[in-house]
């Protein structure tokens, strides 16, 4: 998106110059930042938060909604759109779409914790955008579900990318997918094991860093003290020795990953290096095969990383348990440090996959878990007892069985609406909502085509018993909250983005025709 910022800066002055030179102010007034306000009046205004205003007025100014109400005065010079007999909605939000995601990124490749869906989007796919506008959709959350971990969700405003900043959030919550993997065999047991191990390893990683920060602080103090007193402090040369409280001597000196493998600080830590030195080639081959097998069997590529340096050494850089089988003397660090000076603590290696999960464990980023059934949900609830993650779940099937627990933990359920009206799960959304669970509806289409049918998809939830204004909230305001952009989009309220849909016929009727769509105040569809 930074890339696009530049052309925009260039274009606007140029456009302004042309406008001033050739047409004077009218063009500027029409398209520039000072375009006159748009007033949509006479329609039934569905605010998106459950409120409905008969004969309401919506005033758009610039990129935002200026006012929403009944009998509002029309500002001077405003473009008036008569919506009499029509329905006015906030732009719809499909929280789980594959719109704009390039087809190859949809289908193949391995997921990773550090990937960002935002990097795989074609923001210039105007056909896809037009199709979505045709369905009244103006914001999408784009998620990739190729593997257990497939990076962070992107939240995209569907507007012409020409110089526009289309991301509402470049890095949304993390997608974690159980049993729903595309193009890769999946096994529940293994997936849960990996998820748990990754969280545990990240927890240790965080602890190692916390410990490092602590030691560093201590070291600085010691340094000051020794500078003041001029006394010599003994430093332990032996790397495998535990740090002595009176002489901090490189707690993390063991090198990459050591901190991660250790227990939390304080419990008489013994270095357990992750390197093996051997010239026994058959053993090495066996080891490599075994580890390779373990990796192929589901240790994520970013987790059980193995590096065969040569035929003599093999370094394991991760904290999973099998590494503990291997012994190697820790890499000496700061070995030349003079005996008389306090030893600087070794800095743990920064690992990006761990950093990604760290945000999750520290509550800075949410996790969205795609689950296959009630058993997965139960596993998740159990896991939450240990790790208080900010979590939402996507699926919907069988969630009703655990509705009370989900409600108690305020876990939003993104219901992938069965489009099979005969399905036994048709009432899933209604049942969850009745139990007090926050419900969001999505197409979760495997193809980008699905997103334009978001309202039809929600209509099926209405058939399942969800009241229609609830269903609307589930694809507008609640969807926005789930995506973390509830302050910007999702309802027709003053100060929010001017994303507005005018429909002939109610949105959930098949014969509804989306007649006009405004995105950030600009008319993008008219028919």
């Amino acid at each position, binding site marked *: 998106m930074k890339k696009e910022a530049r052309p925009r800066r260039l274009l606007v002055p140029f456009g302004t110059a042309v406008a001033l030179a050739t047409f004077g102010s009218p063009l500027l007034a029409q398209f520039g930042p000072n375009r006159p306000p748009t007033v949509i009046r006479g329609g039934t205004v569905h605010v998106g938060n459950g409120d409905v205003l008969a004969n309401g007025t919506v005033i758009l100014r610039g990129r935002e909604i200026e006012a929403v109400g009944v009998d509002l005065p029309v500002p001077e010079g405003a473009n008036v759109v008569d919506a009499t007999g029509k329905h006015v909605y906030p732009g719809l939000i499909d929280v789980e779409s594959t719109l704009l995601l390039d087809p190859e990124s949809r289908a193949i490749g391995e997921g990773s914790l550090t990937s960002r869906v935002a990097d795989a989007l074609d923001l210039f796919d105007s056909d896809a955008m037009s199709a979505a506008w045709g*369905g009244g959709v103006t914001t999408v959350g784009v998620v990739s579900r190729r593997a257990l971990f497939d990076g962070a969700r992107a939240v995209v405003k569907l507007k012409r990318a020409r110089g526009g900043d289309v991301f509402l959030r470049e890095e949304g919550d993390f997608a974690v997918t159980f049993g729903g993997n595309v193009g890769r065999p999946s096994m529940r047991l293994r997936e849960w094991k990996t998820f748990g191990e990754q969280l545990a390893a990240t927890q240790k990683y965080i602890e190692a860093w916390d410990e490092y920060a602590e030691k560093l602080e201590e070291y600085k103090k010691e340094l000051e003290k020794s500078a003041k007193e001029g006394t010599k402090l003994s430093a332990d040369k032996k790397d495998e020795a535990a740090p002595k409280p009176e002489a901090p001597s490189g707690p993390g000196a063991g090198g990459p990953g050591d901190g991660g493998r250790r227990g939390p600080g304080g419990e008489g830590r013994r270095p357990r290096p992750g390197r093996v030195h051997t010239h026994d080639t058959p053993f090495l081959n066996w080891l490599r095969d075994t580890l390779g097998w373990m990796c192929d069997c589901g240790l994520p590529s970013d987790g059980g990383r193995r590096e065969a340096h040569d035929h003599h050494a093999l370094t394991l850089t991760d904290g999973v348990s099998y590494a503990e089988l291997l012994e190697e003397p820790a890499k000496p660090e700061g070995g030349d440090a003079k005996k008389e000076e306090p030893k600087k603590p070794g800095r743990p290696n920064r690992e990006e996959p761990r950093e990604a999960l760290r945000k999750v464990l520290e509550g800075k980023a949410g996790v969205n878990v795609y689950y296959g059934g009630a058993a997965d949900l139960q596993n998740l609830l159990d896991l939450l007892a240990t790790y208080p993650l900010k979590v939402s779940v996507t699926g919907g099937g069988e969630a009703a069985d655990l509705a009370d627990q989900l409600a108690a933990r305020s876990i939003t359920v993104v219901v992938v609406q069965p489009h099979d*009206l005969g399905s036994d799960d048709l009432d899933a959304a209604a049942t969850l909502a009745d139990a007090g669970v926050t419900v969001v509806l999505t197409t979760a289409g*495997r193809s980008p085509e699905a997103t334009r049918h978001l309202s039809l998809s929600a209509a099926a939830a209405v058939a399942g018993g969800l009241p229609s204004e609830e269903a609307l909230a589930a694809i507008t305001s609640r969807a926005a909250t789930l995506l973390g952009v509830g302050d910007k989009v999702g309802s027709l309220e003053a100060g929010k983005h001017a994303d507005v849909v005018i429909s002939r016929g109610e949105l959930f009727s098949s014969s509804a025709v989306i007649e006009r769509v405004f995105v950030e105040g600009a008319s993008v569809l008219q028919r």
Partner: protein
Amino acid sequence: MLAIPLLAAFAIASGPPPAASLRQPAPVALRVDGVVQPDGSLGAGGWIVVRNGRIESLGGAAPPAGAATFEFPGGIACAGMVDVATSLGAAGQLAEPARAFTPDVAAADAFEPDHSSFLAAARSGVTTVALTPSGDNIVGGRLALLRTRDDHGRGAVLVGPGPLRFTWSDEAFPGDRVPTSRMGALPRLRELLAQDATKTAGASLVAVQTPDQIRTALDAFSAAGRSIALLQPIHPEDALDLLPGRAQAVVLGAYDLDTPERETRLPKLLAERAVPVAFTANGDGAALRLTAALAVRSGLDPKAARLALTAVPARLLGADGDAGTLEAGKRADLVVYGGDPLDLAAKIHLVLVGGAAVAKKETP
């Protein structure tokens, strides 16, 4: 079998008519707020009177004396849905693939009345289906017309030897039997079409894919004076202008949310050329309605969409005397929806097949 407890459950769970009462000679009257007309439009409601499994009258201002009455505020009555290409109730394979031409094969011979798929179909609003030979053979055999519920709660054959199913797409030319090409197949096909024995009520159902297959099929059948319905053509765009006046209808579906708009626009393009469309979804009413809804969202006129679920497929099967529209004298195959049948948000309140109510889901 299950029918009796189910019917009892229906009576307890959902208020509307106990099935038993609908089968008695005394008339049953249903009050609805709208009725889908024979032209597909939404018309005014009123009382629908059902007697002896048939529709006696529609749109009356008051129920007849002595009738059991049931009211559906906001309800819209529509003919039960009809699906021309299903494998509902099939016991085993619906083909004899050793030979390419099997005009004597009858799908009715592979019919299993107690198949559970009938109940699901009936509940979803589908009242008449054709059990259709599969696409392995150039001439696959005769369809069997079925109603999804009989008086004993089972599927039942209405017409055994129905229209013929042909396959003109690559599926029927596996290469390991003769004929291996369409050119090679045409003489035998023409010969068969010339025989009276292959004449049936309704249209011959012909599976085609490409424009070139559409053209040769239309030529062969119109030369023999046969009425033809094209089954699930994949790329008919380039052949659209060949169809008016020559194809009785085109059978399309099922669509889902992932179906590209290029496909969901076909019904609209066909309707614009006055070529009727019928939808098929293997007897799944919900999928049929979704297909219709998607076609409407892609521009199909709602009237044509309603007919594509009911009257058009009934006509293709030669069953339009009894099914496909709500008219006095026809079999009482009807569904009361909570709104327009095309609106997915409209629930099904009642399904009658031949005047008998279909039980809703079992209550646990």
